[in-house]
């Protein structure tokens, strides 16, 4: 019980850090993101610095969570912000979501690094496209990723059964497929699938 509580406190802190002062006001946050990315696209280095100041903790923490290694996490973080610098011109504010994009790219890069370090070759890993403009495969604008939703997700993660949480973590933070997880945890594939499905259903509800 203390463990769960601790996880929750850590999570709440992380979320507050990630969202910063504009917490809760997703409309204002998106407008700010749009302006900053437009400035970056115009070659404004100070704007990149400001985006770094707001999101470096989110990016570095996620890279650390995946890799558990400061120098590798540093490399990934640098990659992510440089990519933002080069690709800012593609950003479509009506569809793109800067925080979602940063999380996607950070996670993809970190898992790529992890997989190559582990010599893990499998055709199952097919990361999401990293275009800042997600037009074409998203018909609707992204729902708000608010501080409350993230807190609920964190709380739900902490309340999952140990094995269920482990499975979601291996899938999300390490990019393992269901059959890789079954092998790794020495569980029948059917069990992994069932537990994944129920855990994801709970997390999905927490996002609403």
């Amino acid at each position, binding site marked *: 019980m203390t463990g769960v509580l601790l996880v929750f406190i*850590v999570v709440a*802190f992380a979320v507050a850090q990630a969202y910063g002062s504009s917490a809760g006001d997703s409309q204002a946050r998106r407008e700010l993101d749009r302006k900053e990315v437009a400035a970056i696209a115009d070659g404004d280095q100070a704007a990149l610095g400001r985006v770094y100041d707001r999101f470096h903790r989110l990016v570095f923490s*996620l890279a650390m969570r995946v890799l558990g290694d400061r120098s590798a996490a540093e490399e990934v973080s640098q990659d992510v912000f440089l990519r933002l610098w080069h690709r800012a011109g593609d950003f479509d504010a009506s569809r793109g979501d800067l*925080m979602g994009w940063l999380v996607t790219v*950070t996670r993809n890069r970190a898992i790529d690094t992890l997989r190559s370090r582990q010599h893990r070759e499998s055709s199952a890993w097919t990361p999401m496209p990293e275009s800042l403009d997600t037009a074409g495969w998203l018909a609707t604008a992204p729902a708000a990723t608010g501080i409350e939703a993230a807190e609920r997700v964190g709380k739900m993660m902490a309340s999952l059964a140990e094995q269920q949480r482990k499975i979601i973590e291996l*899938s999300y933070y390490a*990019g393992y497929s269901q059959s890789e997880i079954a092998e790794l945890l020495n569980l029948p594939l059917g069990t992994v699938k069932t537990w994944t499905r129920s855990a*994801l259903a709970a997390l999905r509800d927490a996002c609403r």
Partner: protein
Amino acid sequence: MNCESLRDSYELFVFGTLEGPEREEIAAHLQRACPECSAGVNRARVLATNLGSIAPPVDAPGHLRAHIMRAVVQATPRMHSFWESIFWRMAFPVSAAAALTLLLVVFGLGREIGSLNLELKTLQKSAADSRKREQVLVSRANAYRAALALMSARESREVRFGPGLKPNKQPDGRVYLNPKGLVMIASNFPAPPKGRTYELWLLRKSTKGAEPAGVFDPDASGGAMHVLARNINVNDIAALAVSDEPPGGVQERTGAIVMVVPVTGMTR
């Protein structure tokens, strides 16, 4: 497969860890803008972002910011915008304009080489960790020199490819063919598949075979320059092709063809 049976797979699809036919099915539904699957994947993306944001907080090292800003200054696409402004905006007809453009190119390249040399000198003085960047700069400077020689040679032939007008996802650019080699300058190249690189092929008229002509990787913004410095029989080239291949390239094509450029209608 109907949307109903894909409903439980949106999250793993977004995580990039979905196996089996569901993966292609969801991709196909998204391709045709299926409203149900788009909304489902969208919700899954929100969950993924939330999972990403609840990683235990760790402070980034203090020097990281300065590191990144320095890298940004170095990576600011001086070189790239130079290429773009010279090449992409010019119609390049067979006329005095072509000669003028070439002059600009020569002038610009000369300046680029000059500034690269300056940068090199500074670097040579600094510590061992700059050695890597130094090597990159040397090879880049050499490549620009070779490109300059090929492009300004009287006997070079220019072949254009791609849409030319408003940029889209098709690679677009130019190839200069010369008996002493070739140079390809392009933009809008998609990143090659993971663990692959691009390889250029010369398709022969005489043998109907493909001859490897070197490997290259586009930069982060899709720009690519490739120089092949060896004698080639320009008149025997029917077309140029690019495919993705394992690092270092191969002798016989194994990967998917990204583009084919017929060598006809020379403009110079």
